[in-house]
């Protein structure tokens, strides 16, 4: 790996030298460039407006996340193809009991401002993120760490942190700096996959400069990654340039990456067709129809399964008792023709789901949903009759109208209507925020669409946050003691294979209760101009910048 990095650096230097000398043609003598393309140069990539300031602990969406992934390296790096975690900034992560972890940080890593990365940079950043009054979006990732509860605001009303609501502690008791390059983490309960989680953006280290002026840092973050941020021109572009000091194993090939900010993907796609933009990270629906993008961008497109799952969740039983019977739920699930909807509405850019866990993670097992997720209208109708028919007057399927979900929810409802003979209406809710608020306040009746993008590549991330009793994203208030028990056992298991098998057993229980209907696994489709080569999609649906180069 190290060797490769060095040849790339040499190639980059020679390319720069050629440019400087104004020498275009006679480069055949010292042709050190690899066959797939040359290093150096600059590319433009589709970007969108980050929702929050660019602080890793405060970014939970892809617009800012795509940028921060390049600016910040983490303790753990996920493999681009398999999402398998491997140590990056961590020298070692050790534990005996899945509860007390000792993390050693590699020496000699520098932030973009020249300061050295030390253990305290992690501890300070994590404490800052977990401290309630700071309002960091990714604060909940630190929930497993001991002392998290004491850092949360306890008050009510508009400002829960005012007066008596102020947290009783400012630092996590579970974090301790041992020496400059070593720190320890103690979790409240056993967590078998903590090392896997550490590659998520929320766990990145922050330099001292952040604590001096968090606001200025949010506009121009200082990280440790292969690229450093040069400028964020609001609403226009974000410019990254290569970090010359980067010593890690995942350096990029190009010298400069510019994220051009678009409001919609259609104009970006047209810019790629005209070679005005190099990479577009999704394909608009108009070009997906009949695989139009494949003839628009021949040999210049790619598709890959990513860690996303689309589901349909039933409202909690106390909100809407009509869907309480698991037989009714299974009948509705069986009445959905996932294959045809995928083909006609999504143009095969999804994969019909056969379980609750994405195939990209370690521990995935196919067909966990069994026959409940196989389209069979006769059996569905028979099952509904067996359950005594549907009690309400019509089935409703709600969706957020701002996310392109209208088509597939309508098609899903048509499928249910035709198979079960019960009227089904897809109901749009004006935007995502309103939609989620109605679910959170338990005002949404019937069924509603839910989706989950993995935070870190682990089977646990698809089960615990979504379906464990009282979990943060358990929208249907599902509660099954046996399921919870298996998850706890899995979290405490020291052997990875054993943990995975326990998680799989837990997942298998879901087929009997059907708390959610699995719909689709996600895929990401990208296209690029004829100036670049080597564009690969990671398991997270992002561009693998270690491979992209100019032709």
């Amino acid at each position, binding site marked *: 790996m190290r060797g490769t990095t060095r040849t790339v650096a040499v190639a980059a230097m020679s390319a720069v030298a050629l440019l400087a000398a104004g020498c275009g043609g006679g480069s055949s003598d010292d042709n050190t460039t690899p066959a797939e393309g040359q290093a150096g140069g600059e590319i433009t990539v589709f970007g969108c407006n980050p929702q929050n300031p660019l602080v890793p602990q405060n970014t939970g969406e892809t617009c800012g996340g795509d940028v921060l992934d390049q600016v910040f390296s983490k303790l753990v790096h996920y493999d681009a193809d398999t999402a398998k975690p491997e140590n990056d900034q961590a020298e070692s992560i050790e534990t005996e009991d899945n509860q007390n972890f000792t993390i050693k940080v590699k020496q000699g890593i520098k932030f973009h401002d020249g300061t050295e990365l030390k253990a305290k940079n992690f501890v300070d950043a994590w404490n800052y993120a977990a401290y309630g009054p700071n309002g960091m979006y990714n604060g909940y990732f630190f929930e497993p760490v001991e002392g998290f509860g004491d850092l949360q605001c306890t008050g009510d009303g508009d400002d829960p942190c005012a007066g008596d609501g102020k947290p009783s502690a400012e630092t996590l008791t579970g974090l301790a700096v041992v020496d400059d390059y070593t720190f320890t983490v103690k979790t409240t309960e056993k967590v078998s996959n903590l090392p896997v989680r550490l590659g998520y953006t929320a766990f990145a280290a922050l330099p001292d400069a952040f604590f001096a002026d968090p606001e200025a840092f949010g506009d121009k973050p200082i990280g440790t990654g292969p690229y450093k941020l040069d400028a964020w021109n609001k609403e226009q572009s974000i410019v990254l340039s290569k970090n010359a000091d980067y010593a890690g194993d995942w350096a990029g090939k190009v010298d400069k990456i510019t994220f051009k900010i678009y409001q919609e993907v259609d104009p970006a796609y047209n810019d790629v067709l005209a070679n005005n933009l190099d990479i577009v990270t999704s394909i608009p*629906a*108009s*070009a997906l*129809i*009949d695989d*139009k993008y494949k003839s628009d961008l021949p040999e210049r497109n790619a598709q890959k399964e990513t860690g996303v799952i689309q589901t349909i969740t039933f409202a909690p039983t106390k909100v809407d008792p009509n869907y309480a019977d698991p037989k009714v739920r299974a009948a509705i699930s069986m009445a959905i*023709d996932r294959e*045809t*909807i995928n083909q*006609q*509405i999504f143009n095969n850019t999804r994969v019909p789901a056969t379980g609750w866990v994405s195939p990209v993670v370690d521990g995935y097992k196919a067909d966990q949903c069994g026959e409940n997720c196989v389209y069979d209208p006769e059996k569905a109708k028979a099952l509904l009759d067996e359950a005594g028919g549907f009690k309400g007057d019509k089935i409703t399927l709600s969706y957020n*109208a701002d996310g392109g979900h*209208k*088509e597939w929810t*309508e*098609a899903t409802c*048509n*499928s249910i209507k*035709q198979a079960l003979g019960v009227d089904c*209406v*897809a109901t*749009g809710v004006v935007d995502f925020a309103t939609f989620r608020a109605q679910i959170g306040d338990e005002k949404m009746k019937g069924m509603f669409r839910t989706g989950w993008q993995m935070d870190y590549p682990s089977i646990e991330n698809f089960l615990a946050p979504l379906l464990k009793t009282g979990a943060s994203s358990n929208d249907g208030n599902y509660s099954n003691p046996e399921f919870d028990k298996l998850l706890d056992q899995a979290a405490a298991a020291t052997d990875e294979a054993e943990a995975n098998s326990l998680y799989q057993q837990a997942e298998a229980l879901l087929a009997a209760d059907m708390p959610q209907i699995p719909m689709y696994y996600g895929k990401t489709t990208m296209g690029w101009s004829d100036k670049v080569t080597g564009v690969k999609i990671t398991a997270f649906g992002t561009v693998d910048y270690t491979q992209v180069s100019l032709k």
Partner: protein
Amino acid sequence: MTEATVAETTAPSDPHDTSDEGEVRSLASDAWRAMRHNPLFWVSAAMILVFVLMAAFPSLFTRTDPNFAVLAESRSKPGEGTWFGRDLQGYDIYARCIYGARASILVGLFTTTGTVLVGGTIGIIAGYMGGWVDSLLSRIGDVFFAIPLLLGAIIFLVSLPEFFNNNYLLVVLKVVVALVVLGWPSLARLMRSSVIQVKPNDYVQAARALGASPLRVIGSHILPNALAPMIVVATINLGAYIAAEATLSFLGIGLQAPAISWGIDISSAIVGLRTTPHMLFFPSLFLSLAVLAFIMLGDAVRDALDPKNR
């Protein structure tokens, strides 16, 4: 001629009243004679008749349920089992086009009736009363006139309560209300100016001098002679309101599924512009023809009512 009208008939606004043909003819019968010889009128009338039939009795034209989807045949081309092909959801486009007429015709008719009633009444009051009443009503009209139709309708429709989405008629009604609220000032202005034009005429003064009440003066003497321009503009506007309804539905704030409207269908077909344009073509064609029919009718009526054009 207008004086003769007043002298001869008490119901001159009836367009079918042709009994007094001969030496003395009413304005309406005169217009009707002119229109009968205008092919434009017959073409547009025939088209409107077809669209009205579609709106009232869609089952005359198709037996297919417009909400029955055959997803497996989604985006199939015309002729592959259906006349106009199928759309993204697999609905029969021909059936959707037929059923979509109802929303457009209803919105067009209701809005025109509404603007004529509101705008006409306010225009007559302003024109006849004059003075501060005129100033007040005209300024109120200016306020609404200043709001751009589409922009205003978007704000209006978005802020309406959920109640209006309860049934089909209410959904249609909310679009009508939005368009009437923003559309009446142009007709009020028109009416006001024609009333002011007619008011100083001798026959009006005579009627007033004889002690006729304002209502009688307006009803029998002013209205029949000031109505012509409004009829023309209202007919042409009917087409424009149909287009406005489609625009609002296209933007997703007018009619909403499961209601069927050409605007909704055009909006959902737009993704196929480069690949399966027939999904977009047919609803657009129906919309264009309906708008064209009413605008052509308005043209024919104007030719007939405006003596200068003869």
